[in-house]
Each structure stands twice: as C-alpha cells, then as structure tokens.
C-alpha cells in the first residue's frame, strides 16, 4: 500500500527554511555584532544569572516569575560552554531559530500534507516581523513558539493514527511539550489552553448543528482531553510547582488584569519610556514639538507611532502583516463557508483544527484590544497574542490557496506572478530584518550600543560605585549595562545605578553623553542635558561622563 500523499517524505524542502533562518540569524548578528540589548533580553538574562548564582529555579530575587525553563536553559548552556549568559543570549540562542524553522516545517507539512507547502509556510513565518523579533531577542518566546508548533504537530499527527500504539508516542510528546510550554511561560500556556477550550466548545456546536461532521467527534473528544489535562498541569504548576507565578498573578490589582493575563495573553509592559518622571534641571519649560519616546505611554498602540521614524515607514515595514491579516480573514470566511456547506472531511481535520484555533486566537486578540481600549486593563498590559495568531493563519491561508482551483494561465502570466512573488518575499525579508533589528534607519527605538559605551560601564563600575548616572532618554544604556556586566552576583554589589529619562533629576549627579546620544537627540527631538557647567571626569573620545557641580559648597 502506498503511503498517503501527505506523508510523502519531501524532506528536502526543509532545507529552504533552514537556510533562510541561518542567513537571517547571521545577518541580524552582523548588524550589531552582539552589541545590543532590550528589556526582555535583560530580564531573562538577569533571571538566568540569579538562577545560576543561587542554584535554584526560584531565586530569591531577580527570577522570571512566569516560568523557569528558559533561564534554566541559559544556565545549562553557560555551564556547558563556559560562555557568559549575555553572549549566550545575543549570539548562541538566536540560532534556535533554525530549530523553530525545522519544527515549523514539519508542523505545516503535517497540516497541509505537502512538503512544499510546509516550506512556504515556514518561510512566510520567518518573514513575519513580529514573530521574527520575539524569536531573535533574548526572550523565552523562541522556545515558547517552538513548543506551540510542536503541540500542533503532535496533535495533528496523532489524529492520523487510528490505533493507540501509533498515537501514543505522539500523545506523550504532546503532553511533554505542553508541560514544557507551561514551565516556560505559564500565562502563554494558559492562553493556549483557553484556545483549546474555545475550540472544543466551538466544535461541539458544529457537530450538534452539523451531524454529518461526526468524524470530528473523536477529534473533539481529544481536544476535550487536552484541555482537561493541560488545565490540570497548569493548576499544579501554578499552585504547587512554581509559586512565583501565583505571586505574579496576585500582583495584578484588577480582576480584568488577571483574566487578561490568564486568557488573553497580555503582560505588564516593560516600558520603553523614561525610568523616571520628568523634573529636575530646568530646560526653560520648553515644549518639545516633536514626538518623543519620553511620553508615558498609556496604550501600546500609541507606542507604534512613536517608535518609528514615521507612520509610512511603519506600514512599509509591516506590509506583510497587513496582507496576512486580510488574507487570513478571507481564508477563514472561505473555509467557514466550505465547512458549512460540505462539512469537514477526514483529510481536512488538520486544516479544521488550524481554522478553529485561528478563529479563537483572533477572538482573543479582538477581546484584548477591546478590553485594553476600554481602560479595564489597569497596568499597561501589552498584547502578546499576535505571534501565535500568525503561526496559525499562515497555514490557513496557504492551505486555502492549495485547495483553490486555479484557472489555467499562460506561462507568461505565471512567470510574472512568480517574479512578483519572489520580489515580494525578498522585500518582506528585508523589511522583517529592519523591523526585527530596530534598525536606526527606520526605528526611533535603538537597541544597539557602541564599544565606546561598553567601555564606560567597566570604568563606572570601578570608579563610580553606588552613585546614580543618567544614561540617555530610555532604557538603551540601562539595558546595555546589564548585558555588558559579568555573571558574578558580586559584580553588581557596588555598581552605579543607571537611570534614564527625558530630564536629569536633581538627585542624579553624573551624566553620560555619547556620540550615539547626540544622534538620538536629533532623531527624537529630545533636549540634551546641559552639561556645560559640569566637571568632565571621563572622556574616551566618543563618550563623556560629567559630574554636576553641587549646588551648595559642602560636597565635592
């Protein structure tokens, strides 16, 4: 008996996403040569350092309260390689994108039944800027979404086996991956579990009203088991295995915040805004007429317009995303019609699964947007549901295109279409790269730091222990300082306190200004601190550190 076509081992197609992922990771690394930092990367690096220093998944301070597996992974790699945790974050672990690409390929191939389709889906996933960004930075999401893909794969693959012996190994892997997901980020996992639940309920409605879709019953039964089992895992994890999650949930003051955190996959934002409120040195009360990042952002959506050079640039970079959203909406409706008219055939069960999850995820996004806009969310939560939405709608769109009957066309038309597709993909790749790296050409949110700035951190640690130093308008320098520091806990014991803000507060007596700061002033329209009357105590040609002359004669 020949194997079904959808199991044809078109393994060579995996080389495309793997090669693309490798080039992408290399290109991104080459942009800053590892000299970059951002808030989530710093948070997880700090958590890893605390985990390594105390030898426990629940360190007394600095741990990541939503999950322990990613910091533990960093500690493991550091112990195995001897590299610093910062280096692992910015140089080593980004290569996990290849693993993600590979898992994405096999998942999409299993869903769509075609290696080529799987490769195309994986490639499209890799040029979705938001997905790329969260995978390339030092966040647990590079592991999280890989595990989610693994879950989808094992679920889909297990449906194809009618006997327990065949499905059992995949089921085991499914639940191991599920627990791994919970251990990586409990709130991401709980949102996914909510997706299972909603899909299950939706499926019940479908088979009730459409009895011909009885083939979905075992599938829905399986979803029910998944929801129940994962819920138990999640409860055990939150209640007993990793108490910090409970503490994190308890810190959210409003019921809406807690529900949103659990089921809508929103998190308290690590603000890209000034660490300090305004005040301090006089700037003459001048009003900054240009948009700056220094305004406290009440909504993540406002941050969009502030983070890029202009709105046109933003839409140019995110064009693929908008196309995808539009295509996803169309594809979902098309499949809704098909399933409504013709039901779900056995071979379409994976597509139905993806269709259902995509719908649920879309509802969650819509719900989160509505709740956020209504102000019910009190703690500046940020929407994190977009990456899972993307990895579900891409196979939905491609799978829908697969099933369309394309009218015959001339070779010339096909050639033009193919050429357009190639150009578009190349464009999307470049745009994703620029967006994922927050390249200063297009972004106001710079994440790179220069070697000259890195040198200052060491000097400051040696000479300015315990004092407060102003380092630019947002967290660029404060995060860079963390990444440059070594992993020993004692190295932070007497280090200076780096602060950021649009103005230098009166209690901050040291100011660092670099050539990058000067450029940022021009880009952001910020006002450079007036250091004309200060004592310059450090200058390496590109970076100066000044000491504010005291306002009274009693201190040096």
């Amino acid at each position, binding site marked *: 008996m020949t194997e079904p076509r959808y199991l044809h081992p078109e393994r060579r197609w995996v080389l*495309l996403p793997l*090669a693309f992922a490798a*080039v*992408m990771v*290399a*290109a991104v690394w*080459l*942009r*800053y*040569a*590892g000299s*970059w930092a951002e808030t989530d990367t710093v948070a997880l690096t700090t958590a890893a350092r605390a985990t390594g220093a105390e030898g426990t998944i629940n360190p007394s301070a600095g741990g990541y309260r939503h999950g322990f597996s990613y910091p533990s992974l960093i500690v493991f790699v550091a112990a195995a390689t001897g590299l610093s945790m910062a280096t692992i974050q910015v140089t080593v672990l980004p290569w996990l994108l290849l693993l993600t690409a590979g898992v994405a390929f096999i998942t999409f191939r299993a869903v769509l039944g075609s290696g*080529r389709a799987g*490769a*195309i889906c994986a*490639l499209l996933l890799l040029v979705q800027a938001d997905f790329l960004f969260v995978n390339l930075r030092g966040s647990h999401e590079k592991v999280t979404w890989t595990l989610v893909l693994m879950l989808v794969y094992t679920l889909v693959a297990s449906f194809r086996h009618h006997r327990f012996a065949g499905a059992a190994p995949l089921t085991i892997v499914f639940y191991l991956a599920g627990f791994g997901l919970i251990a990586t980020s409990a709130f991401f996992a709980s949102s996914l579990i909510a997706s299972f639940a909603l899909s299950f309920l939706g499926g019940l409605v479908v088979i009730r009203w459409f009895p011909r879709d009885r083939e979905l019953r075992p599938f829905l039964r399986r979803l029910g088991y998944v929801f129940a089992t994962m819920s138990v895992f999640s409860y055990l994890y939150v209640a007993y295995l990793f108490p910090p999650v409970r503490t994190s949930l308890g810190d959210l003051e409003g019921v809406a915040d807690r529900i949103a955190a659990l089921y809508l996959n929103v998190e308290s934002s690590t603000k890209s805004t000034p660490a300090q409120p305004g005040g301090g040195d006089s*700037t*003459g*009360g*001048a*009003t900054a*007429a240009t948009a700056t990042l220094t305004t406290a952002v009440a909504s993540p959506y406002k941050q969009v317009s502030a983070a890029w050079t202009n709105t046109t640039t933003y839409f140019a970079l995110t064009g693929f995303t908008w196309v995808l959203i539009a295509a996803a909406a169309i594809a979902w409706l098309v499949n809704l019609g098909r399933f409504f008219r013709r039901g779900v055939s056995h071979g379409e069960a994976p597509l139905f699964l993806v269709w259902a999850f995509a719908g649920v995820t879309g509802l969650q996004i819509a719900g989160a947007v509505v709740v956020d806009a209504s102000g019910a969310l009190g703690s500046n939560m940020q929407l994190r549901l977009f990456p899972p939405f993307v990895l579900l709608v891409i196979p939905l769109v491609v799978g829908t295109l*697969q099933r369309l009957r394309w009218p015959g066309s001339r070779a010339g038309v096909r050639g033009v279409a*193919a050429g357009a*597709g*190639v*150009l578009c*993909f*190349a464009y*999307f*790749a*470049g745009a994703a*790269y620029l967006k994922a790296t927050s*390249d*200063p*050409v297009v972004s106001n949110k*710079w*994440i*790179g730091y220069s070697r000259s700035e890195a040198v200052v951190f060491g000097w400051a640690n040696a000479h300015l*222990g*315990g004092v407060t130093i102003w380092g630019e308008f947002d967290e660029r320098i404060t995060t860079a300082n963390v990444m440059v520091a070594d992993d020993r806990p004692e190295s932070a014991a007497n280090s200076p*306190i780096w602060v950021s803000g649009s103005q230098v507060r009166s*209690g901050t*007596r040291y100011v660092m200004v670099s050539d*990058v700061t000067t*450029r940022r*002033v*021009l*880009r952001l*329209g*910020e*006002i*450079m601190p*007036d250091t004309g009357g200060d004592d310059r105590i450090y200058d390496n040609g590109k970076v100066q550190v000044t000491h504010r002359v*005291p*306002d*009274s*004669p*009693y*201190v040096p």
Partner: protein
Amino acid sequence: MTWPRRSRRRRWRNGVVGALLGCLGAACLLNALAAAEDAADSAPRPFAMLSSEPVAGPIVPAQGRDARCRCYTANDRILVHRTAGDVPVSAALDQPSDFRDALWLIDAGVRGHPQIAVWFHDVDGLLVGDVFQDQDGDGDVAWRPDGDRPVSESAFFSIRVVARDGYWQRDGRLAPNLDLFVDDRIAPAFNANTYLDSMANDGRIDATIRVRGPRSGDPRSFDWRDVDPPMPKRAGFLRTTLTVRERGLEPTFAPVFPWYPLGFSNEGTASAVADPAPAAVPRDHLPIQHAGFDRPYGTTTPPLQVDWDAGRVALIGEMVTSRWSDDTWFTYSINRVAADTVTNPNFESPFAFYDLADDDDAVPEMIVRAERIVANDPTIVNPSWVGRANQKVRYAWDQDNTQNWSFKLGLLGQHRIESVVPFPGFTLQTVPYDEFPDWVTERPWDVAAFVAAERDLWTSEGIYAWDGSGPVRDAYYAGTSSDDDDLFPELAPGLRGDYALDLGDRPWLTFNPVDRQLHLAGAETGIWALEDGGRIRYLSSSKQTFDGWQRWDGGLLSAELYRVPGGLLYSDARETLFRAVEIPAELFRTLPPTDHAEWAALGSLLDEHERDLPPGDLRAMFDAVGGDAIRVAAAPLSGFRRLDGGGARFAVSAADAEGRGLLSRLAGRPVGAGMQVVTRDGAGWSVVAGGAAAPSVTVALVESPRSTIPRALDHAGLRVEAANPGTLDLGPVRLVVEAAGPGGASATLARRENLTLDGEAGLVEDLNWTPAVPGSWRVEARIERAGIGVYDAAPVVLARAELRQEIAASPALGIAESAAVGWATTAPWRLAGFAALVLTAATIALVAVRAGGRTV
C-alpha cells in the same frame, strides 16, 4: 469662788481659739496621713507571699510548693516542682536552690493553668532559666512530669536567661551579668516593630542580649543587644542597640515575682495565634508600673514584661537604661556591632545624657546626639552621600534645671570619627562619652540651627525642632539643590530659632543687647513663633548678630525695629521713632556649656543680662535701651534697606503738617508733602523727596561659546534686567518671561511673584532657554503689578521688553548616519548582511516557486 469676769472671757476666747487650732491641726494631720497613704499607694510594692503548701513532686520525689502570692494580681499561683535532686522547694521561694533544677508554673489570677513556665537548670555549667509561653493560643503552657524536658508546649524556649554570676538577684537588684537569648515573637529591643513579624519560636535565635555590670577598673555597665531575625540583608532595622551607664548601678526595683526578672507589661503583646484565649485576670489594686521602654527617671522595672492577659512576654525591657538617667548613653546602629571587631556604627552613636547641674537626680540637664551616616553605608539610599560620612548633631540643655529644655543646637558637618570606645567583646568607633560635648563645641560646623524654648518644653530626647533633617541635609547640604527657601519649617508657638546655612565655624552663641536673648552667632535669619500667634522675624546685615526685628501678626507687618548708625529705629502703624544710643553688637559670646562649671557660668551671665521684656514687644525693646528718643515721622516707615557703608534708608509719608514738621526738623530744612526718603548714616540724617517711576526691563540673549546662532534643542542663555529709577521701592511686582515660537510652541521661562524692586536699584535674572523648534521666536519679559486689573481681570503691565530671535534648525540625522549607528564593522561590510539576506530570500523564493511544478 467664781472667776472674775475678765478671766472668764479670756478663757472662753482661749478655748475657742484652742478648739479652732485643734481642728486645724487635726485636719493637717489627717491630710498628712492621707498623703502618706497616697504616696504609699502610688509607690510600687514588692510581691508578698500569701501562702505556700508543700506538694508532692510529680517529676522527682523531692517536695515542691504550691504558693499563692500577691504578685501581679491579688492572688496569683506559683507552682514549683523540683526537676532534679532531692532538695525540697522552700516555702518562701527565696532560696538559691529554688532557682535551680526546678520548674516554675505561674498562673496569674489563678485561672487554672499556667501562662508562663520557667525551667531552671544547668547548661554547660551555667545556671539557666528557660522561659516558655503559650504557643497554640489556648492560654496554657503545657508541661509534663516525664521526659528530658518538663515543658511540652514547645520544643524550643521562648527566652533563655543565663545567670553568668551563678545567681539571679541580690539586694533588690538583678545580677549584673546576664545573657538572654530570644526565640519567639517578643520585642527584644527598641523599635522592634520593623522585624517583629519575622520572629518565631522555631529554634533559631532571633536576638542575643548581653548585660554586663561594672568590673575591676571599669565602672561601666552595659546592655548589648544583637538582633538577627530572618530579614533580608539590606533591610533597614536596628541590628544593634547598646545602652551604657558610665558609672553607678541601675536603681533597685520592687520585684513583682519572687524571680526578679519576671514582670508585667502595660503594652500590647504579639500573640502566637490570631485569637488568643480570652483573658480573665482579676486584677488587684496594685499600681501599674510604668513599663515598656519608657520609664520614670531613676527607676527600673523587671525586664521580662509579660502581658498576663494574653500570657505572653511582650518585650524585654532595658536592663541598663538608655534615656532615663543622667550619666548614660546609647548607640542604635543599623550596622551590626560584631563581636571582637571594631565597628563603625551608623544612625545614633552616641546619644548621651549628662548631669549638667551636678545634682545627681537622674534627670539629665543636657543631651548630645549624633546621627551618623558613615562612608559607603549600605543602608543609605541617598546617592548624594555615597562614599562620604556626615553627622547631624542635636545638642540641647536645660539651663534652669527645671526639667524643661532651654536651648538646642542642630548641627551638620562632615567630620572624621576615628576614636574608639572598647568594651569587653567588641569595640565601637565612636566618640567617648566624656569627650563628646567638647568634640561638638570644638569643631566647626557647616550648617547650624539654634532653638530656644520660651515656654515649658520637655521630652526625653531634647528639642526636636530644626534638627537639620529632610531637605536641609539630603538636598541642600548634599548639594543636589540650591533652593534654600523654606528649608526650616515653621516652629511651634513658644519656640524661636536662628539658622545659618553657611556657618563654617564653631557653634558660638551671642547675647543680643537689644532683644536680650541668646542667639546663634553667624545666623543669617531667625524667627520666633509667639504664643499669641504673632511672629518675630530676626534680620542680620552682618551675618554675625541680629540687627533687625520685625513683628508680624496675621501676615501683616505690625512693628519694625532696626539698629542704624547712632541708635535704634522703631516704627509701627502710628509713628516712627529714633533713639540715639550707642549699643554694642553683643553683650557676651560663649560656646554651649560642656560641663557644670560652664553651665553655671552661662546661667550667671544670663541672669545678669536677661530682661523681663514682654514677648515680642518691639516697643519695649526699643524703650529698654535707654537714651533720648525723637519722633521721626507720624507714620510707619516702608522700604527699609541698608546701604553699603553701614547706613540705612527708608521712606515715610509727609502727608500732613505734623509729618512735614517732624521731617523738616530732622532735615534741618523745609520738607514738602508726599513720600520722603530718609537716610541715616554716619553723617546724620538726610531727607529727599521720594519719587516713584515706572520700572524698565530688558531681555537679551547671552552669547554661547558653542555657536553664535542658537539652534533648536540646544541650550541658550537669556539675561533679563529690571530697573527701578525712582527713589521709592516698587512692590510687590511680578516678573514674567515667556517665549513663543512657530507652530504654537511656547514656554514660560520665568515667573517670579512678590518681588520688590528697590528704589534706584534693580535685579538681574539669568535664565536657561531651550527652544524646541527652529524658526522665529519671540521672547517677552514683563514687569506686572501684583494682582489683576479691576476692569478686565488682566495683569497690569508696568514694563515690557521683547526679543526676536531666529533659531536655526538642528542638523538632521541622515540615512547614512543612521545606518552607521551601532555598526561594529567597517564601511564595506555594513550592508553585507542585509544584502546577503535579501539575495538569499530571493533565491529561496525562486526555488520554492519553480521547483515542484505547479501543484503543491
């Protein structure tokens, strides 16, 4: 024989007088007896044994005792069982053997179960008393007659008391050398509320207390408490409290129980459980001793203060007093004073109390306190003090020995403290007790405040007002702010204070011949909050002594008094007077007293020179200096101002004939009507007609060395100059400087309210301006009259100036320059990764499209 009439009358009279005197005497006697009884009632009484029955020993056969006493209540039960040996327990519970190998079960109020159990036994050859209390909230301490430990309530003692001398009490005092180990939720030291909740009866010692008495060659006794609850390392709480008595012994006390360390508390306790068993203690009429960490001077109490209602030890009181004597001092340190090392304590060290009156009455007449930040203090979060030490000193004394504080100095300085004070087992890097007052008075201080109490005022720690706390030390003194307005808050009525933000000298005090008060030499200003609600403001032109006084009532100036060349000038609502008299700048100058002799000498000087002037009465001060007074004007003066060279000028009205006549006599020539400007200097008086004139104002850009044309987002300087060409002062006025630019950009650069433009003078204001956008800007400076116009509610502008300035654009950040940010590689490689990515993407897409044919 009958008495003669005269004798009979006399006898009646004598009898009546005698009866009256007898009644009076009886009344006096009865009163005296009652007073004696009251005094006796209020004095703490020691316990009294009521009964003592032998009981069979349940643990060992040796006989125990079931005793009743009037201890905490009128009827308390103390059940004593022998736990080892065969010596019977004595009837009076007063033998040394009663406190060894015995279990004491104390039931206050005979409630049927013991609230406190004390197990006396030997540990490593030392006599130990382990105190147990209720842990499970049933109000009972469970015990058992078998096993190694007679108390089963808890596996761990709550307090272990070690009698290092081999005995507990003698001659009405506790043994001088005791160790206490605390392992329960019991306040072991002052200010325990910060960590009390972290303490538990869990086998981990939370506090260690070492009490040591005088020894050969060292008359000191001390109580050293080392607190170590399970708190984070950087938590700020008092890890060490040390109280020291320099000489003598702690007072005796009336013991509450036969075991002297055990007492009672008036304060709340920390119950081991949320709902302790309800109390049912029938309390006697026994007077309540003052307990906790406060106490009457010269007294002491049993240290284990038990809340008998809850059946738990509330706190462990001081065994060497901190504040309640006059030859003691203490250290409260957040840094832990470690054994066998030299520790530099932070927070309070030393806080010392002195018998300045040498009367040995246990009430201190002087306190000297140093609050210290040590260099690199990890508990200090103010980054301004990183790496630097400072001291905040409070130096207060009772000059009259009436248990009321008279004066206080609040000082800020940055001195090195390198002297050490050794103790058995540890050493403090601090100032020795005997040297401390001189240490303060011999050193220059940067910031100083002097407060005098003009009313009765007593606290256990001196005068708190104007200690140099808050923004004085952590903003102004730390150099993070130059704003010296309102650094010292308002004083409470009855207090007056002077301060100098830049003293730079020893804390000299000067006695002013005009107001007859002691002041801080070098003070720049001061205030006196009168008890009638008024305020006296002290002014100084020399920054040495005060030479100006203003009385304010309800926010209005009601009288002024100034020293001027040749005499004193006084003015109130009715008239202005001058008294020609030569007055010295000060009558005497002294440092604060450091010992009894200096204190007595200062007292003599004050007695000699003080006058009983009505508080805040400037007219009385003016009249008291003597000399002839002349009437300068029949109206109040205004705009008093001192001139360079020592003279003074002011304005008065010559609106009526009387006023003109007075001024004419002063000037020696006729004076016209209207406001007149009067000047008094070394040459005498001069009077000129006062003229008001509109002020003028200018605003100009200060050239920057960086660029000739200011750019947007760059800092530029502006100078605003305002002038008053008239001879009369102009005020109150408002200075406003505003900038308006393209696109609605605007900024208020300055807004100064309640300014006074002195006559024939002006002011200069330098401002920082950062234009936000390029283009044409207009900067306007205005002098406005205070208030608003009555017709249109708009400001009344007295003078206006405008500056039009072109602001150049900031250079734009080009794409190439943006692309160069953050690159670690050189130019030829900058685009290599990007180009490779795009090419790879195109290639892969081509493969995906072409390979595999049409179908997917």
